[in-house]
C-alpha cells in the first residue's frame, strides 16, 4: 500500500532529524510546566482535561502541517505528484505519519502532565482512549485542511485560522469525555465517543475526496 510507504518514509526522515518531534515534545513539556505553576491547586483537577487538550491542540498546530509543508519547501511534493500514487494515498500516508507523531508525543507528555498536576484519574484506560481518539480526529482534520492550504503563501498562518472553527465539535466532545473518565462516571461517555468517531470519519472522507483538487494546480 503506497500510503504506508509514504508514512514509513516520513517516519524514517523524522526519526533521523527529530526536528518536528523534539519541537512537539519540548513545547508540550514546557507548556505543562507553565500551566502547573500558574493554575491554583484547588481548581487544577477541574480544568486539567481542558488544559491537556489545549496543549495537544497547540502542539498539533505546530507539528502536523509540517508533513506537507516540508514536502513543499523541499519541492519533493512534485516527485509524489508525478508518481503513480493516488492523491488520496498521499494524504492517508501523511495522516498515518502524523498519528505516529501524535502517539509518541502523547506517550511522553501524558505521564508528565499527570505527574506535575498531581491529578488522579478514576478510569485511566478510558481517559487515554478518549484522548487518543480525540487526537486522531484532530490529526485527520488538520492533515485534511493542510492539503487545502499548501498552495497558499501564508499556509502556516492560514491553517490555525481555518482549523479551530472546524474542530470545535472535537474540542468540546473530547474535553467532556476526559472529564467523565477522570471523575469515573462514564455512563454518558458513548455520546462523546460517537461524536468524535463520526467527526473523524467525515473528516477522513472529505480529506480523501478533496485530495485530487489539492494536488492539481
Amino acid at each position, binding site marked *: 500500500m503506497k500510503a504506508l510507504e509514504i508514512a514509513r518514509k516520513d517516519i524514517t526522515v523524522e526519526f533521523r532529524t527529530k526536528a518536528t518531534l523534539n519541537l512537539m515534545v519540548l513545547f508540550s513539556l514546557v507548556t505543562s510546566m507553565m500551566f502547573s505553576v500558574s493554575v491554583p491547586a484547588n481548581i487544577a483537577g477541574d480544568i486539567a482535561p481542558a488544559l491537556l487538550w489545549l496543549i495537544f491542540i497547540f502542539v498539533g498546530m505546530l507539528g502536523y502541517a509540517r508533513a506537507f509543508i516540508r514536502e513543499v519547501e523541499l519541492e519533493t511534493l*512534485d516527485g509524489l505528484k508525478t508518481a503513480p500514487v493516488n492523491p488520496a494515498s498521499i494524504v492517508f500516508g501523511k495522516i498515518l505519519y502524523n498519528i505516529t507523531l501524535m502517539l509518541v508525543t502523547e506517550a511522553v507528555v501524558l505521564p508528565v502532565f499527570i505527574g506535575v498536576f498531581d491529578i488522579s484519574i478514576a478510569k485511566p484506560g478510558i481517559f487515554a482512549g478518549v484522548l487518543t481518539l480525540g487526537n486522531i480526529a484532530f490529526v485527520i482534520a488538520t492533515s485534511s485542511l493542510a492539503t487545502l492550504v499548501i498552495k497558499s503563501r501564508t499556509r502556516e498562518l492560514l491553517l490555525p485560522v481555518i482549523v479551530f472553527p472546524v474542530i470545535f465539535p472535537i474540542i468540546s466532545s473530547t474535553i467532556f469525555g476526559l472529564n467523565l473518565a477522570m471523575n469515573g462516571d462514564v455512563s454518558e461517555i458513548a455520546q462523546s465517543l460517537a461524536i468524535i468517531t463520526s467527526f473523524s470519519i467525515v473528516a477522513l472522507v472529505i480529506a480523501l475526496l478533496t485530495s485530487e483538487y489539492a494536488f*492539481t494546480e
Partner: protein
Amino acid sequence: MKAVLLREVTKKYGHFAAIDNISLEVELGEKLAILGPNGAGKTTLVKLISGQTKPSSGEVLVLGSTAWKFNPELRKKIGYVSHNPMLYDELSACENLEFYGRLYDVQNLEEKIAKILRQMRLYERRHARVKTFSRGMKQRLSIARALLHDPELIILDEPTSGLDIEGRRELVEHLMRIGNKTLLLTTHDLREAINLCDRAVILIDGRIVEECSISEVEERYMKVVGIESP
C-alpha cells in the same frame, strides 16, 4: 499514437496566460528541446505534459491518455527530472531509490537500483545520505530516480541548472546514453539541446514562435531571441 499531443492548450494563472494557445506534436522516440528565455513558459509546459497542472483550455494527451487526470499506468511511463532533484536529504541514495521504486511498483528493485547507481557512478556512495552529496551527484541521482522504472517518456526541466561546467558535461554524457526513448528537454543551453535532441521549439511569452530541426536551432534562436548562443 503520439508521445505527446497538445491541442490549442492555454494555461492561465488569473488573467496571465503562461501558455497561450499552444499546439504541439512529439513522435515516439523523438528528442525535443524546448527553448526560450526565463518566463517563456517552459516549466509550465512540462508541468502540463507531466500532469502536474491542468490546462485552462485545450487538450494535453501523453501516450494517448489525458495528462492531468490521475492514471497510474500513464505515470509509470513518464520519468520526470526538474532542476530540483526531488530527493530526501535524510535518506541515503539507496533509500531514496527504494522509496520511489516501490511507488512505481518496480520489480527486482534491488538489482535495478544497483545497476542504475553503477551507471550513474554513485554505487560507492549508495549508503551515504543525500545531504552529503554535491549538487552534481544529486542531479545524477535524480536522473537515476527518473529512469529506475524504465519510462517511455523522459521529461527534463532544466536538469543542468545550477551545475558547474564539469557537472553539466557529466550529466549530458549520462543523458546521451538513454537510448531510444522519447525525450523532452527544457534548457537555456543551446549546446545541451544540440547534444541531446533532434528537434527544437522556441517558446516566448507562452507561445511557440519557432519550430526547427536541431541543426538550425542556433541560427533560429539567435534570430528570435536576439542574443548569441553561449
